[in-house]
């Protein structure tokens, strides 16, 4: 296995095209354990962290642009980002220990394809897009379109993520991400739920609810969103959100949770995430 550290997107693109079986990496926090567990070694490990664009965080013209290989701790220590997207920061801040968060990236968390990836549901709830380096250029796609199943993505061979784009949250908007784990730290979500709401006075004018770890990919809950938009938050609306989230969940049984448990908790967490996002949005977003 060879190691390569390109400094431009073009150089990385060429390395991947010229070396079948090569693989990109950022923090290697998933890659190294996978190699150690016996998965075949890549022919070339392409380290993306020397490409400035993949390590930059910029906020201008009403939009955040976040390099796909940027350590998540850079984002969770950015007060302006945390204030605008507390839910995305909550998700990114739950990925392993400080040691891991100094290496883990939004791009890696997404492309690893885990249904339980903590940073993904809130990114989808905020309409995040990602710029993909493809064979002959760049294309921009919604984050929601990248993961197609556990460990599977829609990226073609040789494609990799350059940066995320997230539009500024409109006035009266905020988000939240909650997860359930047996331990408080260093664990993988049994269920995760993200919500983003926009309020006009007390009335909800926009809503997005996204579940993690309860299906092969993240799941949006349109029935919950429909119940929220145009409503004033009430116990009745929250019960509809919970029932809709439980109905949308399609989980597996495994050592971390049963189908029945995950289905019920998906409803409870969705309800709590919506209430938290509403509280934050009501406080000025």
């Amino acid at each position, binding site marked *: *296995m*060879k*190691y390569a*550290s390109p400094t431009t997107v073009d150089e990385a693109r060429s390395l991947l095209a010229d070396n079948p079986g090569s693989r990109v990496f950022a*923090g*290697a*926090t998933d890659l*190294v*354990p996978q190699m*150690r567990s016996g998965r075949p*070694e890549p022919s070339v*490990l392409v*380290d993306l*962290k020397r490409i400035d664009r993949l390590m930059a965080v910029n906020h201008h013209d009403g939009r955040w642009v976040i390099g796909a290989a940027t*350590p998540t*701790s850079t984002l969770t220590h950015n007060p302006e980002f945390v204030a605008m997207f507390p839910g995305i920061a909550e998700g990114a801040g739950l990925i*392993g*220990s*400080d*040691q*891991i968060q*100094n*290496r883990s990236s939004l791009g890696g968390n997404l492309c690893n394809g885990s249904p339980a990836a903590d940073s993904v549901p809130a990114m989808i709830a905020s309409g995040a897009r990602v710029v993909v380096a493809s064979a002959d250029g760049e294309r921009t796609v919604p984050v929601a379109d990248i993961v197609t199943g556990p460990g599977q993505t829609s990226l073609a061979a040789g494609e990799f993520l350059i940066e995320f784009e997230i539009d500024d949250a409109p006035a009266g908007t905020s988000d939240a991400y909650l997860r359930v784990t047996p331990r408080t*730290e*260093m664990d993988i979500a049994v269920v995760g739920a993200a919500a983003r709401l926009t309020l006009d006075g007390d009335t909800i004018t926009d809503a997005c609810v996204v579940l993690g770890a309860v299906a092969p990919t993240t799941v949006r809950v349109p029935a919950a969103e429909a119940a929220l938009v145009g409503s004033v938050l009430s116990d009745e609306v929250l019960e509809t959100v919970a029932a809709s989230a439980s109905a949308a969940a399609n989980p597996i049984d495994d050592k971390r949770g049963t189908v029945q448990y995950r289905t019920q908790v998906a409803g409870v967490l969705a309800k709590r995430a919506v209430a938290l996002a509403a509280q934050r949005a009501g406080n000025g977003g």
Partner: protein
Amino acid sequence: MSRTHVSCNINGEDVEFLTADASSLLDALRNELGLIGAKEGCGTGDCGSCSVLLDGRLVCSCLVMAPEAEGRDVVTIEGLAEGDHLHPLQKTFLEGAALQCGICTPGFLLAAKALLDANPNPTETEIRYGLAGNLCRCTGYDKIVKAVQEASVELRGA
């Protein structure tokens, strides 16, 4: 096997070494450079025994590919004391017997240093969260948390 020549700064000294491309920074530190303070516990980023500072950021050296160190600053446990003067954390760990077998201790000390550098006066809860990436199977953590609290007092008073 592909090998790469790496130039970096380790504990304040410019260092060059040759490493297999597939090697971790942990293996390079231990096997090429004789710096055996960082330990391999799990090899998968769960236990924190291999913690080092890479450009000032706490990382698991088992998850860093050795060639990544090119041009970077690395601090290992061997760089924590200044000559014969132990770092306050090393002193409070010793005085408080915050270790038994010692395998996890280098990682705890560097994680605690990173924590106190960022937050000089952490609460007990903040210390426990800050050290969540370091596992100790001997002490039950209370003595470690107390040692960090005592070092925090000393560092702020200094």
